[in-house]
């Protein structure tokens, strides 16, 4: 019984984790790419990682919080431009190839021993080295607060302050994307997804619009990366390919091309994953599968879930199939 209560607690706690919120921000960015514009960005974790590095290294160099935050945003913009310029005029799968590779390379270069002094090599950067300016901005003061069955520090690592800020950002960005997609700009973006040639024949510069979309989503990815490392630490291996695939699965689960899809999808996805993992640890004896193997098994399930989702229910939980046009 205790085990089940623990699983339920873990599930509910995961729903309000700041890292979940950071993940949602990146998923909203990916939704701008894929859901609304139809761009196959397979390296969203790379955007997160480059944002995270930009932020953490700037803080380490003594810059104030906002300067570092904008450097992270610029890093995301630059990354989007570098990847977009060669690929956005070509077929969709070129963007997929280049993004998947570039994200891996950011990670490999980041963990190269030659850059140890800057990026911390494969160990990454510890939270202490960059989180203080953010904690100092806290409006919540010291002490602990209990809401429902959750009790956390007001300000400390992984406390209510980072929860409040990241979830506020989630809803802010969701609102921004909602407004963007209702605007004329958003209508052009969506028509590019439906029929690129038709948009071109109306005299729109498709390349430029795609690039703008890539930048917008990439900046959201970079911000997601910054928020992701704030309550934890910067570990390059935590933001590898798997992270990208998680974001994809969560986004497709919730429903691409919807405003709430990425939010709902991420929350449900993490809760489900914890449930599967926790239950397996409870039920399956160690002799069959040890903890490492249950972890690996849950990754296999993510891969299979991604396949099944895209085959049988590409619109996800709340999406509209008509809104999804899978043209390459």
């Amino acid at each position, binding site marked *: 019984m205790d085990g089940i209560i623990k699983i339920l607690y873990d599930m509910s706690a995961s729903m309000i984790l700041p890292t979940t919120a950071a993940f949602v921000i990146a998923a909203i960015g990916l939704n701008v790419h894929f859901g609304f514009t*139809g761009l*196959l960005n*397979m390296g969203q974790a790379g955007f997160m990682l480059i944002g995270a590095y930009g932020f953490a290294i700037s803080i380490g160099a003594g810059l104030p919080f906002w300067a570092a935050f904008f450097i992270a945003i610029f890093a995301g913009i630059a990354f989007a431009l*570098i990847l977009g*310029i*060669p*690929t956005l*005029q*070509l*077929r*969709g*799968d*070129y963007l*997929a*190839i*280049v993004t*998947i*590779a*570039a994200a*891996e*390379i950011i990670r*490999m*270069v980041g*963990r*190269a*021993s*030659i850059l140890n002094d800057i990026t911390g*090599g*494969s*160990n990454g950067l*510890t939270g202490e080295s960059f989180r203080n300016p953010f904690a100092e901005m806290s409006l919540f003061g010291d002490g602990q607060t209990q809401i429902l069955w959750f009790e956390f520090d007001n300000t400390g690592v992984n406390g209510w302050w980072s929860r409040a800020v990241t979830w506020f950002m989630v809803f802010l960005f969701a609102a921004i994307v909602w407004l963007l997609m209702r605007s004329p700009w958003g209508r052009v973006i969506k028509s590019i997804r439906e029929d690129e040639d038709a948009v071109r024949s109306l005299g729109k510069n498709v390349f430029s619009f795609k690039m703008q979309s890539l930048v917008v989503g990439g900046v959201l990815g970079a911000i997601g990366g910054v928020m992701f490392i704030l309550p934890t630490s910067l570990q390059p291996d935590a933001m590898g*390919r*798997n992270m990208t*695939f998680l974001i*994809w*699965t969560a986004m*497709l689960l919730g429903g691409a091309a919807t405003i709430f899809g990425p939010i709902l999808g991420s929350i449900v996805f993490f809760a489900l994953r914890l449930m599967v993992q926790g239950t397996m640890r409870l039920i399956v004896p160690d002799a069959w599968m040890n903890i*490492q*193997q249950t972890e*690996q*098994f849950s*990754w*296999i399930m*993510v*891969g*299979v*879930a*991604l*396949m099944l989702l*895209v*085959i049988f229910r*590409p619109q996800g939980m709340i999406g509209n199939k008509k809104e999804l046009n*899978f*043209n*390459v």
Partner: protein
Amino acid sequence: MVHQPVLAVFARKWSRTFVAVIVGLLVATAWALTQPAAAFAADTAGPCVADSATGCFNGTIKGVGAGVKIVISGNGQEITAVTDADGKWNAAVTAAGSYTLTVDEASLPAGVTLKSEATQTRDITLGFNKGAVFTVNGGSDGGATDGGGTNGGNTEAATGFNWERLAQQSASGLRLGLLLALASIGLSLIYGTTGLSNFAHAEQVTLGGLLAYTFANQLGLNIFVATALVVLVTGFTGWLQDVVIWRPLRKKGLSLTQLIIVTIGLALALQYTFQMFYGARTVRIIMATPQTVDIGPVTFTIESLWAMGISIVVLGGVGFFLTRTRTGRATRAVSDNPALASASGIDVDRIIRIVWIMSAALAGLSGVMLGLVLNGISWQTGMQLLLLMFSAVTLGGLGTAFGALVGSLVIGMTVELSNMVLPGDFKYATALLLLIIILLVRPQGLFGRKERIG
């Protein structure tokens, strides 16, 4: 041309190929029986995973091989880590704090001495990895065993220019290019016949290498028998994939974007399936220390020479198949224009099935060879090569088999030569840079046609 029953033609043309393959295998087996069988070696301990209660010390002592002991003591704990075949070691501690790490010099191989201090002190925090670097004099870390797939943060490539190094790196580049070509031709053919960028193709490469480890190392089969088995099994998985996944999905009318995401999901699932069965460590197909041969200024292991020879023969065979046999010509026709090919009586589904079998088998073979020349194979070897394969295929022109060959050679060469001026960790970045330049300058690749790129 009078249209013959396709199946009959297929059987006749393929029976010849099969006979050739079988004769080749017999010759190989005869040679191989005279060689000592690969010894079975015990596995080293699994990798340490840092979590909230564990910290991991790890490192690589290059050039010493398995069996060197490192004693880690402090905070009431004393743990002995032992290097694996690649000189990698790791150890888990359960208390944070300062530890002393001492290499047991008695456990070093004969003729090898420590270059660094024998004892180092390191602080560790739980939940983190901490590296410690020990270096040796007289290790067996020749350039010939250096290659792709390096992943650790502690590897430092020797840089600096001299002519011998240029020759050695060019030769390594040629070797990498040939092995890459085996894998990328399949990728290109699948793209050509179905339009699909198969992100799970690299997993076929990994599968090949890991199966070779099972057959040759764990079961102790002769390496050539093992290779033949691997080719058969991976070919079968290609057929299975087409029957179970890709054909039904084509019939269901899934768009290419959906299919690409399916391949990515499949790649993820396969990678972790490999990890479940083989762990996260690098395994070696042949445990014996590789023997080397000097050819002019270039040093190669025997395995490398065999791998290159086999690649050349197989690539020649594929070329022959594509240009001279009826099925091969049909394959190129489908690759060129599936609708027209179908209208002129080619069974497109059958061709696609053959392409899947062939691609998977070639990728598997490439995996075995890569595992042999790169000193081991792990669950992510293929994934790390995926970028190189895509770069090669794009450079040559997506969908063209011969483009893939040329592209692979160029990419292999570039990647290895860039190693002369850049640390090893950056060599994939070079390949990406190359890919971006190709896309900017000539997106259809060397041999591709413009209409393919959309």
